[in-house]
């Protein structure tokens, strides 16, 4: 049963669809952050999970990693590399959301810069789980 599902997920059309979807999400997220680095830096700061001195360095580089990964997925240039990178970032982001949620922090998730930025909590966690699954599918090797 599970193998049948995996075979279906590894069909080129399914893989490509997953790659484009997760790539589009990351493209929007990256551009929103790049457009307002100060907001993203403050949102990172509010998580209080990293040393203060490294927050700006993360804020200025992470959106560009997201952007390049998104472009690789959208244009199909080493898409599995982009998908694996996106999967790794989503796992880290989700860990941050869970920790902030557990600590009772009422902070903006910072996922899409200032726009569309919900608060950390159950909804954000489940959104992230969905994106993790999508990135997982996008990183699968196709049939054959």
């Amino acid at each position: 049963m599970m193998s049948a599902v995996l075979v279906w997920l590894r069909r080129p059309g399914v893989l490509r669809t997953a790659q484009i979807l997760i790539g589009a999400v990351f493209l929007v997220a990256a551009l929103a952050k790049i457009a307002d680095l100060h907001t993203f830096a403050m949102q990172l700061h509010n998580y209080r999970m990293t040393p203060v001195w490294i927050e700006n360095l993360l804020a200025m580089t992470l959106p560009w990693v997201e952007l390049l990964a998104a472009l690789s997925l959208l244009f199909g240039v080493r898409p599995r590399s982009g998908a694996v990178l996106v999967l790794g970032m989503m796992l880290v982001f989700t860990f941050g959301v869970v920790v902030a949620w557990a600590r009772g922090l009422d902070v903006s998730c910072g996922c899409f810069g200032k726009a569309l930025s919900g608060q950390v909590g159950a909804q954000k966690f489940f959104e992230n789980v969905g994106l993790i699954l999508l990135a997982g599918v996008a990183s699968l090797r196709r049939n054959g």
Partner: protein
Amino acid sequence: VQKRAKGLGEEIRDLMWKEAKDGNDGGVLRGAIVILLAGLVIGLLFNGLLRASNGERGLAWIRQEVKLNTLEEVLADRAAGGEEGSDSLKAMMVRSAEGPGTEGGEEPIDRSSESLPPPPPVDEEPRASEAPSPDAEEPTPSDSPPAEESPVSEEVPVIPESGEPLLAQHGTIKALYAGNAAVFIDARSVEEFATGHIPGALNIPFDVVYEDPTLLQQLEAGEKPIVCYCDGSECELAENLAFALIDAGYRRVLVYEGGTDAWTGAGESLATGTGDGE
């Protein structure tokens, strides 16, 4: 079952990491590392360009931890500098509440005539603030400021103007509260505010202000200092809001160190609800 689960795990791992037979999408890990490094380099270059073209848009390379001065330090420094005369520390820190209007243009302490920030227009931000009003609801003991119940007899600190927020301890905050000599603002969300806030405080969530800083222009604090607070050492909303107030032009902004934790720790009670009949 264990054997099948193990086999499935290995299969998924192979599917994610092994190269396809045609080699078109090979080198998964190598490609990911290349993207990561390229992103890091471009990010640093882009920020460098931003800083070179417009210093305000780029980020500082290394973020400095902001450490606020305490009110007591500032007053001591000014006293040592002789700015306010030989006994300025005492004069600045403490003025009798019975005659606050005689020096420095302080308003008389009269909560009934207090110039409190009006709540934002209901259609714009219905829950952004709470303006305590004598007839807004049935007053409860916890919602009744001490100043209304008895003549003010405590000494009221006078807060100097400053270009940055100042940290203040409970003693100073309590004196300001008892003397009705400051506007208190809770910087947390409406939901957190409802669970427990300093009686009489306004609720202006920092997240709302961050979205629309012009909201602060509607604040009518008059000559009174503004005290921002949230709920303790883990909360930085008060500090963020205090900086937003400074940016908006207010010059006497305090951050209550410890917030509601310090307030309840000193045996004070909190009010619950949003105060607007909900």
